[in-house]
């Protein structure tokens, strides 16, 4: 879990990093343009949305859970926020409500899982369908645009801060905060404890239900944040937004070495996992791999990485 822990050897921890470097080297050899500053910024901006969701997913997976509904959560919060903005509500207020909605949708998942004792996979499979359905109902299946020209909102997806895209700044700031939470707070420790041994945690006086609800809420909140960035970038909310995002997020977490059974892993790995996926997406385009074939390569890389990881653990 943490760096000092013998349980995940140093080699195991830096393996994803080595993988990332390897992929970057290969892509750069095939197309040196990859390393241009503008392209790298581009990669980071593309990565930011998946990374935000994957950070939240890391918490969920560390507790031994999973959330398939994040893509739909992103779509629903994006649509509702855009709807409010289009109808003239103060954009900042609308965005805050959007974030709140994300946290609530997450909390609903958490409550079903913790209090209803439903397996996370099933619970979020169901809410995924519900949230997506609600999005379609709300938007009537059409994109929502005409979101006004609020500077804050426009900056969120398209702006720069000291030459760095705002989404990237958001990603880095979130990473810092979440890293700190996992590493230094009792909440973070409890997340690991529940994933490591839920029974022992409860018997130690830890309120496991509450931690789980918080963790899913956090993921919902981050999905909503990602949806604001996406909506701002596109200047509209798409009812089909975020489809398959849950899988990219889970892939990033697993690539980063976090165990799907919970209790073991770290968020630094997730950041690297998200970068691997982002670099692949961008790089395969750059070196001209046909888009249908890109999927095959991406899947194969994920599989390879996870297989190597398993080899080391046993």
């Amino acid at each position, binding site marked *: 879990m943490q760096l000092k822990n*013998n349980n995940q050897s140093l080699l195991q921890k830096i393996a994803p990093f080595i993988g990332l470097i390897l992929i970057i080297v290969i892509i750069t050899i095939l197309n040196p343009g990859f390393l241009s500053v503008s392209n790298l910024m581009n990669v980071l901006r593309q990565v930011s949305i998946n990374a935000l969701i994957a950070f939240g997913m890391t918490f969920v997976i560390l507790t031994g859970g999973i959330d398939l509904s994040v893509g739909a959560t992103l779509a629903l919060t994006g649509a509702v926020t855009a709807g409010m903005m289009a109808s003239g509500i103060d954009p900042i207020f609308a965005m805050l409500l959007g974030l709140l909605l994300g946290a609530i949708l997450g909390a609903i998942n958490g409550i079903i899982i913790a209090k209803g004792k439903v397996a996370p996979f099933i619970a979020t499979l169901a809410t995924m369908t519900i949230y997506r359905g609600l999005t379609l109902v709300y938007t009537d299946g059409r994109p929502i645009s005409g979101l006004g020209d609020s500077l804050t909102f426009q900056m969120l997806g398209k702006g720069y801060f000291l030459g760095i895209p705002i989404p990237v700044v958001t990603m880095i700031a979130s990473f810092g905060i979440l890293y700190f939470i996992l590493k230094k707070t009792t909440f973070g420790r409890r997340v690991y404890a529940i994933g490591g041994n839920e029974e022992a945690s409860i018997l130690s006086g830890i309120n496991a239900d509450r931690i789980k609800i918080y963790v899913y809420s956090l993921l919902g909140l981050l999905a909503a944040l990602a949806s604001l960035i996406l909506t701002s970038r596109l200047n509209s909310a798409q009812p089909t937004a975020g489809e398959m995002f849950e899988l990219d997020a889970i892939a990033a977490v697993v690539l980063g070495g976090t165990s799907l059974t919970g209790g073991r892993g770290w968020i630094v790995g997730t950041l690297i996992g998200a970068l691997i996926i982002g670099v692949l997406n961008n790089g395969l385009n750059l070196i001209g791999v046909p888009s249908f074939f890109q999927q095959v390569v991406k899947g194969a890389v994920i599989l390879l990485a996870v297989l190597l990881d398993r080899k080391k653990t046993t």
Partner: protein
Amino acid sequence: MIKMTDISKSFSGNKVLKSVHFNLEKGEIHALMGENGAGKSTLMKVMSGIYTRDSGTIEVKGQKVDFTSPKQAEEAGIAVIHQELNILPHLSIADNLFLGREETIGRTGILKTKQMEKKTRQILLDLGLDVNPSEPASTLSVGKQQIVEIAKAISVDAEVIIMDEPTAALTDREIDSLFKTIRELQKRGVSFIYISHRMEEIFSLCDRITILRDGEFVGERKISETSFDEIVQMMVGRELGDRFPERKSTIGEIKLAVKGLNRKDCFEDISFELRRGEVLSIAGLMGAGRTEVAQSLFGYKKLDGGTIEFDGKQVKIDTPRKAKEMGIGYVTEDRKSEGLVVDFTVEENVSMTNFAAISKNGLISKDKERKLYDNMVKRLGIRTSGPDQTAKSLSGGNQQKVVIAKWLGIEPELLILDEPTRGVDVGAKKEIYSIINELAERGVAILMISSELPEVIGMADRVLVMHEGKITAELPKEEMTQERIMHFATGGGKLAVEKQ
């Protein structure tokens, strides 16, 4: 039969075995003793190919061997029953027994379920266990699961059977039938290596004994030519003195009073009082409902009826968190599944119950955490290679101490201990008894569940005996004898006079 010479083994630079010798003769029962962390389990894992040794040689029947997997050892006739059980809880009892060598119709892979169940039933009956082999293994108590493990080793026709603390979770009756089986197999020429911390067992069962201390070979003796004291001396390297240290506590006012507690299918009509500074023990056979009572008191299992008074006030304890806030601690019975996060470091495990003490506004203070850890390691004499050692890689007895350490940190007012010295060596047992005494002297009320009768008699001020979910007797210190406790634990006549 087996000859191990100059075996050394280290884990990440930590020397755990240092040039150890071990000799097993055909048809003997050879005890292996040593303190917690002395390296007994590690030596056996080296022998059976789970760990690779750093140096030394192993000969089986005069031939040098190099097992690289337990499977190879098994093929050479060496079966191991590990300290930590290897039962798959969702599989049936029969499936567990035949795991990896299922009987099938030809090579079709279709299982002869009926036949395996019949054989299972017979093998277990021979061991004195009457169960339905098609039930999932999780329905069995830990003790009975242990017997299934033993049956598994017996049924592969092993020539050498290694038992790593097989009786830690067994009742006296189960132990009796296990010993009978061992002696019978011995007559047929099977050799045993027997690891245990229970001196009485070693003396009644074994022929020879090898003693390890801190990973070193200390000596080998014939049981008939040694004594209790000599072995303890060899194990701990000094005189130990009395087995049960003296306690000078004053028994104060009532801390806990329960009336008519019941939980469906677990226990009924449980009433007792527990005073400050008192050590109250609950004795009984495995499955008598003792652990369930403890779990209900701790808010982990729901009660169906009855009242609990704490400090004279009626309370409802519905979560362990609430129990903890009230000052109740609970050292659980099964350290691996209930007590520890095995992937956590020792330090992190100790912290789990003590977030209030080591954090401020949700931020963990590394200094305070380390201080708590240092404190506990010193107070309990926990043997670790450092705060960052994972709980998983500790020896069994030290794991137990970590679980106790978790609860000492909260400075409990009422401490429930469920089999607190299971798998703990003599020296450490005494340390744990001293800690219990020290707590009692400070006015902590102690509720101690134990299946080891000498421990109950040596430690308790009063004992409640349970049988099939009911309290069948309450005996004050003067009236405690092994025979009487066993009498009531097995449901023997509930005499009217006894209840007064």
